[in-house]
């Protein structure tokens, strides 16, 4: 019989083990950026996104180590050190490229910078293999110790947040009982349509010189909308703003409150109140696209963006994957992996579905409260003002924001027309057009005050709109509607005056 202790010793002394165990240094060193960025974004990124990019990295590291081992004739420690040096260059190419491009030091082209960087990476990796055995072992141990400690630290930081995330995602919300009322037929449908990062008219005129502002404002006024031009958001975070407005309670945006905001949006006061009045709640949700860890909004009918719509194209990287990959040598291939036209198909489909469905909701019991939150004109800037598709290279380029903003006007006009055409003239709907915050363009010539002016227009049949100030506080959105149409008595709050300080 074989002694287990002997077998164990034999295994640790085997050639296979001696070849394999040094890879631990390259693994700890190579995957550190993935772990670091996941820790920083743990409340916003799904574990599955992290595991997907981690899997790709593991394959890459094993491949690099394998080649290094082969080139070093099986000298495993030296191979691991060389592979780690290569991974250092692999993980920083994108950062260097963007730095050179931004600082405009010299011409940044992948076809020149990448060969240079690769050459230096391979040359230095080769130089490292010339270290003598003792310094080589010291270097290897140093990498294992430092990056092992960092990995442990990050893992222990991630774990509690992961548990909390899982708890929030699994929260179940209780339904509100509808009060027995005969007024249900009289209540108007309420459409709360939010367009993410849609800058206010004044900012569009002032900074972007957008000629299309006036015709759109005229369109809204002709339809009978109240249009306010001096409305400000009290912050620039979507989650914070939506949690405030859906719960008509103002509070400052405090870091670390993401889970709290999630719950306040998912189980919000506006829907609860409307449900108590017999409303059917309908949600067209694209917030969860940007915040995939957000729990499902508690609604009777829910339309969510369907990321699996991309499956036929085998999309490799999601947003988290792109965040990591853009720092690496793969950045040179970004046009191949960046979410091109097909990558944003679910988003395009969601916009089309929402526009179409808003004028075609006969199958959903009335009265309805509809909350649509579309990520337009938020990046990716998919279309120009004339409806041409933007090249994926510029999906995140602020130069294309204005064009997409103008494109969004067409989407909004179509939505408004569809709703009004489908409406019962005897009981017209309430329509609220709003944005969460303005354009958050971090540029020296873009005034910080322009981050907060928002879109604010309300279609309020039978309401004396002259009583609403031009600088109405958006937290009053639902109180204005509920007080007038549903007999609520929610106190209104004072207007905001540039609550943000420049940073």
């Amino acid at each position, binding site marked *: 019989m074989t002694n287990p202790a002997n077998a164990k010793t034999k295994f640790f002394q085997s050639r296979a083990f001696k070849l394999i165990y040094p890879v631990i240094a390259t693994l700890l060193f190579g995957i550190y950026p993935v772990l670091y960025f996941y820790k920083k974004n743990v409340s916003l990124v799904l574990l599955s996104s992290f595991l997907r990019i981690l899997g790709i990295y593991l394959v890459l590291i094993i491949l690099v180590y394998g080649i290094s081992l082969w080139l070093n004739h099986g000298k495993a420690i030296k191979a691991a050190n060389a592979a780690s040096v290569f991974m250092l260059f692999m993980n920083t190419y994108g950062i260097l490229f963007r730095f*050179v*491009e931004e600082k*405009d*030091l*010299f*011409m*940044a*082209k992948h*076809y*020149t910078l990448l*060969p*240079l960087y690769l*050459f230096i990476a391979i*040359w230095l990796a080769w130089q490292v293999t010339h270290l003598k055995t003792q310094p080589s072992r010291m270097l290897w141990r140093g990498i294992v110790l430092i990056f092992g400690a960092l990995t442990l630290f990050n893992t222990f930081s991630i774990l509690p947040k992961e548990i909390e995330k899982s708890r929030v995602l699994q929260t179940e919300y209780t339904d509100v009982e509808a009060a027995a009322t005969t007024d249900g037929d009289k209540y108007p449908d309420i459409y709360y349509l939010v367009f993410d990062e849609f800058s206010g008219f004044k900012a569009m005129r002032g900074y972007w010189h957008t*000629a299309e502002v006036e015709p759109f404002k005229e369109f809204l006024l002709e339809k009978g909308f109240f249009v306010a031009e001096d409305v400000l958001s009290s912050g620039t975070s979507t989650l914070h703003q939506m949690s405030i407005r859906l719960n008509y309670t103002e509070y400052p945006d405090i870091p670390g409150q993401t889970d709290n905001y999630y719950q306040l949006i998912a189980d919000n006061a506006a829907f609860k109140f409307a449900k108590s009045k017999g409303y059917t709640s309908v949600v067209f949700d694209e917030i969860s696209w940007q915040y995939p860890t957000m729990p499902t909004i508690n609604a009777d009918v829910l339309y969510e963006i369907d990321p699996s719509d991309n499956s036929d194209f085998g999309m490799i990287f999601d947003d988290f994957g792109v965040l990591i990959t853009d720092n690496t040598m793969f950045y040179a291939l970004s046009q191949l992996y960046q979410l091109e036209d097909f990558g944003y198909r679910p988003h395009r489909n969601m916009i089309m579905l929402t526009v179409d469905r808003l004028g075609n909701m006969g199958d959903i019991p009335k009265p309805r409260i509809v909350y649509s939150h579309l990520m337009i004109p938020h990046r990716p800037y998919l279309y120009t003002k004339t409806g041409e598709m933007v*090249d994926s*290279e*510029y999906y995140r*380029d602020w*130069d294309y924001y204005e064009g997409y903003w103008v494109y969004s006007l067409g989407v909004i006009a179509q939505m408004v027309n569809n709703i009004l055409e489908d409406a019962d003239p005897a009981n017209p709907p309430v329509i609220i057009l709003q944005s969460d915050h303005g354009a958050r363009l971090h540029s020296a010539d873009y005034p910080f005050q322009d981050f907060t002016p928002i879109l604010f227009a309300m279609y309020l049949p039978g309401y004396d709109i002259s009583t609403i100030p031009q600088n109405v506080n958006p937290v009053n959105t639902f109180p204005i509607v509920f007080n007038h149409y549903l007999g609520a008595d929610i106190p209104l709050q004072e207007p905001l005056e540039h609550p943000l300080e420049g940073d």
Partner: protein
Amino acid sequence: MDFGAHAAPMKHSVIPKKLQVRPRTRVQLILFALLGIYLIIAPTIELKYFLTQGKPVELPGSMPESEDLINSGVDGSKETVIEGEKLYKINGWSFLTVATDLADYDIYLVLRSEKRDYVFQTTPTGRRDIPRVFPEFNLDLKNSGFNVYIAKEALRVGDYQVCFLYINKETGQRYFQETDRHIIRTPNRLELVKIQ
């Protein structure tokens, strides 16, 4: 003294021993040199053999003196991708005040530096605002807009004054106009600026 072991004749290099390099180092130096040569010539090769759009055109003859006969405005420049090539799209409007029909002219945007002129063919586009702004001209200005695509690689780093050149398609008569707009080519960008 016994030199028995070294009795075989030795090869003597003409290079002093201090300056001699080992074969391995020599390979590295050659590779570095090759890489350096590649880095220097690669942009030229790209411009000559791979870029197909946004290049200047060659016009025979010299540029006439600048006259005050062309009204123009350059609205903006934006980087864009056309058929996989990164180009700068410059857009604006212009018209020759003494023309009877803008369609009679080939219109060029000229980028002028102290050393040379780069001439780019423009594409006419529709502009509804220009006829409203200039009602006093008895000229159809509906198509007075223009687009021009420029590959930044086609220009050397430097400061270029934006100018317009109108060439009558039939007579070949040329009209030239300098503007207060400049395009600055940096290593990685083209920037449109207004010089007061």
